[in-house]
């Protein structure tokens, strides 16, 4: 064992790139397992209250703007495609293509957050932010409605924070791609970023039906 710390992408404590790649990959999957449990706690609590306050949750779902939710679903599915293409380009060692696909992913991610800002500000104007200022004039118990919106904001908010972290990760990756750090031999950061981004997309794939779709009556206009 010589003392040189880094020679190329291989870190000193690994024997070869294969081992390093497998370790990084496994670490990412373990991290995703952790994320599933984190979101799982919220999904579990959501299920309990949906069962308990069914009417309020149905009315809440009906009050959410489905067109914005659907648009965001489409945006995220598109971003799953772009990030998958970025990983593929990385495996082939096409640095220029990784860069372009990641920039595309970033644009889609920002678009998603933009739509979310529109939705949130809409709620803000209607005093539907769960706080001491919460106002609800319907027929149901305002406390129950507030719990629905609490879950809406907690779940979509936590998802949005994960999106923001994902975009931050791309800001960290892009200069490295430009410097030519990644090649067909060494691309695990891109691949693991892809895993993360797909995970965040999948969370939304569950959030969209739970919050916007189930219990929805299609003929009620927004």
């Amino acid at each position, binding site marked *: *064992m010589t003392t040189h710390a880094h020679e190329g992408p291989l870190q*000193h404590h690994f024997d070869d790139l294969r*081992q390093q790649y497998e370790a990084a990959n*496994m670490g990412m999957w373990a991290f995703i397992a952790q994320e599933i449990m984190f*979101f*799982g*706690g919220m999904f579990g609590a959501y299920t309990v209250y949906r069962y308990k306050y069914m009417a309020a949750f149905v009315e809440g779902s009906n009050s959410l703007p489905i067109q914005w939710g659907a648009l965001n679903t489409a945006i995220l599915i598109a971003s799953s495609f772009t990030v998958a293409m970025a990983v593929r380009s990385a495996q082939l060692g096409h640095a220029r293509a990784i860069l372009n696909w990641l920039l595309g992913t970033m644009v889609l991610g920002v678009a998603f957050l933009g739509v979310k800002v529109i939705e949130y500000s809409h709620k803000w104007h209607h005093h539907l932010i769960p706080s001491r200022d919460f106002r609800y004039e319907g027929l149901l118990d305002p*406390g129950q409605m507030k719990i629905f919106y*609490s879950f809406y904001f907690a779940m979509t908010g936590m998802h949005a924070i994960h999106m923001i972290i994902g975009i931050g990760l791309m800001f960290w990756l892009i200069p490295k791609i430009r410097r030519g750090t990644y090649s067909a031999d060494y691309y695990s950061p891109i691949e693991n970023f892809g895993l993360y981004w797909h995970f965040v997309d999948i969370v939304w794939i569950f959030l969209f039906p739970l919050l916007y779709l189930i219990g929805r009556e299609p003929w009620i206009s927004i």
Partner: protein
Amino acid sequence: MTTTTTAINESPTVTKTNGRQESYLNASYGIRSWLLTLDHKRIGVLYLICITAFFMIGGVFAGLIRLELTTPQGDLVSSETYNKLFTMHGVMMIFFFLIPSVPAVLGNFILPIMIGAKDVAFPKLNLLSWYCFLAGGSLAFLAILLGGIDTGWTFYTPYSSTYSNSWVGLALAGVFINGFSSILTGVNFLTTVHKMRAPGMTWFRLPLFIWAQYATSLIMVLGTPVVAITLLLVLLERVFGIGIFDPALGGDPILFQHMFWFYSHPAVYIMIVPGFGVISEVIACFSRKAIFGYSFVAFSSLAIALLGFLVWGHHMFTTGQSLYAGMVFSFITFLIAVPTAVKIFNWTATMYRGSISLDSPMLYALGFIGLFLIGGLTGLFLSTMATDIHLHDTYFVVAHFHYVMVGGMVMAFLSGIHFWWPKMTGRIYNEGMGKTGAILIFTGFNLTFFPQFVLGYMGMPRRYHVYPEEWQGLHIMSTAGAIVLAIGYALLVFCLLYSLFRGERASANPWKAKGLEWEIPSPPTLHNFDSIPIVTSEAYAYEEEDVTLAEKAAADATEEVAH
């Protein structure tokens, strides 16, 4: 364990600088070289320093609690202050001492060496985990300095989310951030054990310490995020009044308890399973025998980790939880006694006809077996629903979990610290002082906590500082025990620190123990191994060596006779 690196100690490649042996301690100097280190050994030492500080803070609160309880009147502190004392004692000891104790200190230091790796898989995340721990601990400490928290370490809602006027938010933030440290350590250990084992180090050649750390890491990765989101929701409720856990707002406080215990019961196993790993190493070494039933001990760790996720409801027998759910939880809790008993029986079977030597680590390990046995068996009283109704929230519970946490985990941690101290520091501590410390701690511990079983059985509720006069005798015994315990801890700290300055230099293998960590110099060099070791035998090959020695002696004898 025989490996190709056995010759390292004598190998001339160990370069001498200024006549001193090169090691991870003198590889670089200065505060920056420690605070920015990526070396798993230095990070382990950083953790050791921090958890010792947090242990002392938690210990001061424990001392104040015992002092208050010497008289039946609430005369030393007010009720509010007393609430804060037991809360801060619990928060400090559980989140900032017990949970990181064995995994983050001993695990970080020894785990990569034991499997023949140069470092953990993600050294930067390892350092980040220490900073998360430090940040979380500092926030909790800040909450204490600003006036404290009074919710109990369990943060039960709606008191914590709505009514408490203490620094709950800050403490919650501290525990939340500290959660990242657990998760990062868990992810790191899982990956390291899977991907970084040296050639020949198959799963069933792993020391049992590694199996225990592996099981613990699973709990850390799968449990911690649930308590993180739960505490985050409490924080949101406190700030925005969202009403998920407050019945006045339509929320459900029992849901909080389910979510909290879904992590915090497995967390009890984070606080004991790594200790099992230490005990396996120490018992094997000081009995000079391989662990009896290796695979049973290995799989019992995994069984405990798995079953640990299915028993959280036994904390809630007296809440509005369904009776039938309670019965299931009670039954699964009994089931956990099986893998736990497997361990205890196998350790005693290991000692049977072993050549036992009673050095300090072994004294702590033997203390562990006795105390943990009492702690475990009284757990069965509490997992029986009918008796739990009587004993719930009494000092019986307090005594039970202190027998498990202090009698179990702290003893195991101290056993491990005494066992690997020569490896970590390169110094031998004074064995007489070490043994005296172990005996004092064992005596003081029993004197402190055994009377609490009696108190609890008679009905003394936990978290009260005023009690009927007839219980004063038992409380005075308990406080006297706490003083003995404190003297024991002080002696132990002195003994170890003294060894740093005056202790003899340790050889590579002062205990004649088996395992890769004993085949490299004490303290280890920066990259642990000069060349990657190749493992060719099972763990704990103590008997093979003794057989060879016996054969040699017999051969010598025959030779002598022949002459």
